[in-house]
């Protein structure tokens, strides 16, 4: 009996091993897709039966067709690249400034007392409210968009980096001191990795704000980019292209989030909360 059990469980194990080589369609993968797929199906059904008017909302098929024609002309690829480039530039500039300020204020009492109150005040101004001023300062060129995106990205990164640094385990800091770590080692081995989970929270917030700011500033003044494409289409009543732009925003936003999560999972593999 015991022997039979043993052989049985062994064959089970062997078959189990082979399963992952097939694409797995388990609950975890299927369930998140149920709602969007149903919505699209209903939407297509509503459009086909004339329940939803073309002028208000193009059908999914029409949006797909718009995708093919925009993609074929090369405009879509160009606009995506332009927008992504702007987004990354803003993230890089604003993210770096926010990160450095967060680290410095987290570590230095003097710097914190000098700048934190000011930063907290400026933070409460919605950065999009600065658009009129920014246009006066920079005109409607790339600088204006870079400025706005950087500003939007800066605060979530600053706040979360600062918070992360301030909340590094004091016992670990003392441990570093006991073992004679230099300031640089203390930063590299204790403070930065300790703050990293919080910095990632800031990054994910920042990604959302990055797209929002970019889209708004591109619809106001631009001659290329996704925001421009959507706004231009609106003037010509091309609802299919407008909706296409929305879909692409959603996909790019999701992509950015997936990349951030991957990065998170990879750098925080020590943390049980991020282990699969």
């Amino acid at each position, binding site marked *: 009996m015991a022997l039979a059990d043993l052989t049985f469980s062994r064959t089970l194990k062997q078959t189990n091993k082979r399963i992952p080589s097939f694409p797995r369609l388990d609950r975890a993968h299927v369930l998140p897709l149920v709602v969007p797929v149903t919505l699209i199906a209903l939407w297509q059904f509503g459009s086909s039966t004339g329940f939803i008017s073309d002028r208000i909302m193009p059908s999914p098929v029409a949006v797909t067709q718009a995708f093919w024609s925009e993609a074929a002309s090369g405009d879509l690829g160009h606009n995506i690249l332009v927008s992504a480039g702007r987004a990354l530039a803003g993230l890089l500039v604003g993210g770096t400034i926010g990160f450095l300020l967060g680290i410095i204020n987290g570590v230095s009492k003097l710097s914190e007392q000098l700048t934190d109150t000011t930063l907290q005040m400026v933070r409460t101004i919605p950065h999009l409210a600065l658009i009129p001023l920014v246009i006066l300062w920079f005109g409607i060129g790339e600088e204006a968009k870079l400025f706005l995106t950087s500003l939007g990205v800066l605060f979530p990164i600053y706040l979360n980096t600062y918070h992360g640094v301030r909340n590094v385990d004091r016992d670990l800091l003392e441990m570093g001191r006991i*073992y004679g*770590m230099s300031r640089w080692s203390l930063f590299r*081995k204790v403070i930065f990795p300790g703050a990293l989970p919080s910095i990632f929270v800031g990054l994910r917030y920042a990604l959302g704000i990055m797209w929002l700011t970019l889209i708004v500033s591109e619809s106001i003044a631009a001659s290329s980019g996704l925001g421009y494409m959507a706004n231009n289409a609106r003037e010509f009543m091309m609802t299919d292209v407008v909706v296409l732009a929305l879909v692409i925003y959603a996909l790019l936003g999701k992509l950015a989030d997936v990349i951030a999560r991957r990065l998170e999972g990879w750098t925080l593999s020590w943390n049980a909360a991020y282990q699969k």
Partner: protein
Amino acid sequence: MSLHIHERPATSPSAITTNGATRPDAASTTTQAVSLHLRGVEKRFGDNQVLRGIDLDIEAGQFVAIVGKSGCGKSTLLRLLVGLDQHTGGEIAFRGEDGNPAKADARIVFQEPRLLPWFNVAKNVAVGLGEGVDKDEARTKALAALWEVHLRNKAEEWPSQLSGGQRQRVALARALVSRPGLLVLDEPLGALDALTRISMQTLIARVWRELGFTAVLVTHDVSEAVHLADRVIVLDEGRISLDLAIPQPHPRKHGDAELAELEGKLLAAILKDR
């Protein structure tokens, strides 16, 4: 974690194996133990005088346990010994085995292991070597120290994958990897369950016998103090109220009758005014 008691004589040769590995050479380098000399040591925090004149001499290589009620200043005294705080009165001096004044190069183990969760076990131990050590050398030494605490096979794991007792053993390896002359332990086993604690006591006794450092252990467990130490000191409101030699030879058996008697004596001294 499975209970794993490592009983073996101090003089066992390099034939001992753990997990099939022979003892690494780096582990056999011994320590320059220091002796401690405290004269009228005081420590106050504002108006709160915590240590009120401690006179204490500890021979190089001796194992001393400090017991006493909570809040009597045990941790404060240990922090002075390793230079984490400065005393406000009196003198603390260290001498080498030759009798000349020496640097302490003391290490401390706390109740919490204080491991870096983002470093694997081997890298955590290498932190104990301090700055500017060659990478390969650091790793060799870290692995040797892990071998000492029977965790050589966990070198690549994250601290979060270890049990509480194993984490504390990593902390011990980190403290010992630089071969300090003085090891100070502040309730190192306080957070562990009773069985893990017994196996850890055996482990601490063994590394102490093998490496020969001077050890000062604070514990709230009187039987632990009696089991491990050559000498137990009772601290009461910032003063030494009893200094009791434990003459039994090492290694000691748990449940020894003479030790139990000494334990009773100590408990009476600690609880006298209740």
